[in-house]
């Protein structure tokens, strides 16, 4: 088998290649992204999954160029392709506040966050905020923008969209705020939607209806989605393809079916073994030894080797495994010496 950095020749909305982001802090350098590569096929939902601190949010923020200024992008490419066969641009070629970047942000790529209050402005009504986005990118007509705002609120299943439109964010429940966020993100029918743990703060019944809504809208509008989560259940229900991250790298990339039925990377396998399976597991769970190393330390070789039950002495602790193709047809790749 051969080593290769990125695989497929499919029509990708975004291809991230060897992205490196470092934070320079008083306590030292945090290597948040250590060479992240993956692709998002057009019209699909790509799940980004991993434990806290592995770099999921920073990956999403990088695509939007919204990483805090202490974070420096020090390598790699983020190739964005608005339409099939269209012009491919490297997002990192643009200044973060350039007109090009502002057009991409919001119009071509939208993002929704875990805590909707952090991105809804408490001083403006829901309708004001949706209409602002619409007027910025689509139409100057007030009547038309109001109509579109109500349409999109209806689409996300808001009961009473006219009344909700004139409410302030604090007057809504958590689930309704998340719907309002989704409405805002979808108001410009973006090519790509980045959803960063959009349901983590919600109750299960609300989570289920938001996921259902997102799937429905996705098949209707055809938006590609990058879905960030740490919940394997949500991945299984929501995603078409999955990238598993560990310490600032993608360690396995496969279809959602392969991730659950044919996982190859020891970390993916360990992660799946450590979650209780409904109607199945009783007694002990297989847990992963130790914990994720602190972000200031650097681990030699394979970043998972201190916790890996099948690490190869003399190899895994010194040599960083390259990305290896294990199933070319399905685009299944893994970064592990066992397969190279």
């Amino acid at each position, binding site marked *: 088998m051969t080593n290769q950095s990125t695989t497929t020749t499919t029509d990708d909305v975004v291809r991230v290649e060897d992205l490196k982001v470092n934070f320079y802090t008083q306590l030292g350098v945090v290597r948040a992204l250590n060479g992240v590569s993956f692709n998002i096929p057009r019209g699909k939902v790509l799940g980004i999954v991993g*434990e806290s601190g592995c770099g999921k949010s920073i990956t999403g923020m990088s695509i939007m160029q919204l990483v805090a200024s202490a974070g420096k992008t020090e390598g790699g490419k983020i190739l964005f392709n608005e339409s099939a066969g269209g012009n491919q641009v490297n997002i990192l070629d643009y200044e973060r506040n350039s007109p090009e970047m502002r057009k991409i942000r919001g119009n071509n790529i939208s993002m929704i966050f875990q805590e909707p209050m952090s991105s809804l402005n408490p001083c403006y009504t829901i309708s004001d905020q949706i209409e602002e986005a619409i007027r910025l990118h689509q139409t100057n007509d007030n009547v038309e923008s109001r109509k579109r705002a109500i349409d999109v609120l209806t689409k996300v299943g808001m009961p009473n969209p006219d009344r909700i439109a004139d409410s302030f964010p604090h007057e809504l429940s958590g689930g*309704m705020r998340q719907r309002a966020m989704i409405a805002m993100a979808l108001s410009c029918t973006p090519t790509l939607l980045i959803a960063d743990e959009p349901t983590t703060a919600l109750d299960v*019944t609300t989570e289920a*209806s938001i996921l259902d809504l997102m799937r429905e809208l996705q098949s209707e509008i055809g938006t590609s989605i990058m879905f960030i989560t740490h919940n394997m259940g949500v991945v299984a229900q929501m995603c078409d393809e999955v990238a598993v991250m560990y310490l600032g790298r993608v360690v396995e990339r496969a279809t959602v079916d392969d991730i659950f039925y044919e996982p190859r990377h020891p970390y993916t396998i360990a992660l*799946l073994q450590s979650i209780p399976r*409904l109607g199945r597991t009783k007694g002990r769970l297989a847990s992963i030894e130790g914990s994720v190393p602190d972000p200031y330390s650097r681990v030699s070789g394979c970043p998972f080797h201190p916790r890996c039950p099948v690490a*190869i002495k003399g190899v895994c602790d010194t040599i960083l495994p390259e990305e290896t193709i294990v199933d070319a047809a399905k685009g299944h790749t893994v970064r592990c010496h066992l397969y190279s």
Partner: protein
Amino acid sequence: MTTDDMLLEVRGLKKHFPIRSGFLRRVTGTVKAVDGIDFHIKKGETLGLVGESGCGKSTAGRALLRLHEPTAGEIIFNDPTLGKVDVAKLDRTTMLKLRPNMQIIFQDPFTSLNPRLTVGQIVGEPLEIQHRASGSELIDRVAELLNEVGIRPENMSRYPHAFSGGQRQRIGIARALALNPKLIVCDEPVSALDVSIQAQVLNLLGELQAKYGLAYLFVGHDLSVIEHISDRVAVMYVGYIVEMAKTDKLYFTPKHPYTEALLNAIPKADPRMRTRPIRLQGEVPSPANPPSGCYFHPRCRYAKDICKQERPPLQDIGDEHFVACHFAKELSLVGVQPLNDIKLEMPVKKS
């Protein structure tokens, strides 16, 4: 089942909070956070308590230990030395004697430990308060407790901030164990942890239970975790227990429409088992202003006229299965399907 197996029997427990408003902070209403719940816990067993945010799980757990003064109800605890006592009516001195037997661990390992105390002081504090140990004996006991939860005793003089979330949760468990309790209320002890650390803490709780015959009231909102750890499960909705049964019964043959909706909504970790959710109408009502009759009626797809008028009591339908629904015996509801049994094995190097 003999009554001697019984560790805790709770009857009609209520906790209401006053709502105050205006300049004079006058009482203008009440939040019925826990509004008349009945349940029991046997020695050495785990009762899971689930329900959506704000339904009163934490309030119920705290009221058991009188961290909240109950508004009404009985909390009969079978104390090894005092016998059966009503915790709700105890005076301070008797409560102090009973306290070692009932402990609590909290959700947030980042705020539940005092940042100004060392780990040794945190774990040793209950022993000192109860005059159980001092001097070198105290240090030995603290070291033993830390060992028990997988923290190296050398770390005794460090402060909580030097530990990860999972380690802090272990320290909280060591502290709760210090006085050899019979019951530990675990209020979402793994909700803030990453999955790999969550598994370690769940395993630890299981080991300690087997070793010391501990009983747990395990509060949680992750229904997969609750299924894994519980012998029996109680489901709460707006301050009220709507269903309680042995775990398998509750998950495979639920009898309450709310339980059915909750189980249906679990994000199942199996891409070959995708489900469309049962769309519930509207939102969870506020415990300050609950609807009439069955609190679930505005959202229930099986509701009939009687549901608007009469609140169904929690009734035993046989084999320790309790349900609060007028139609518990008639409805045939859908439970969970076990996930596919996927064999996961670590790979080996092919050469």
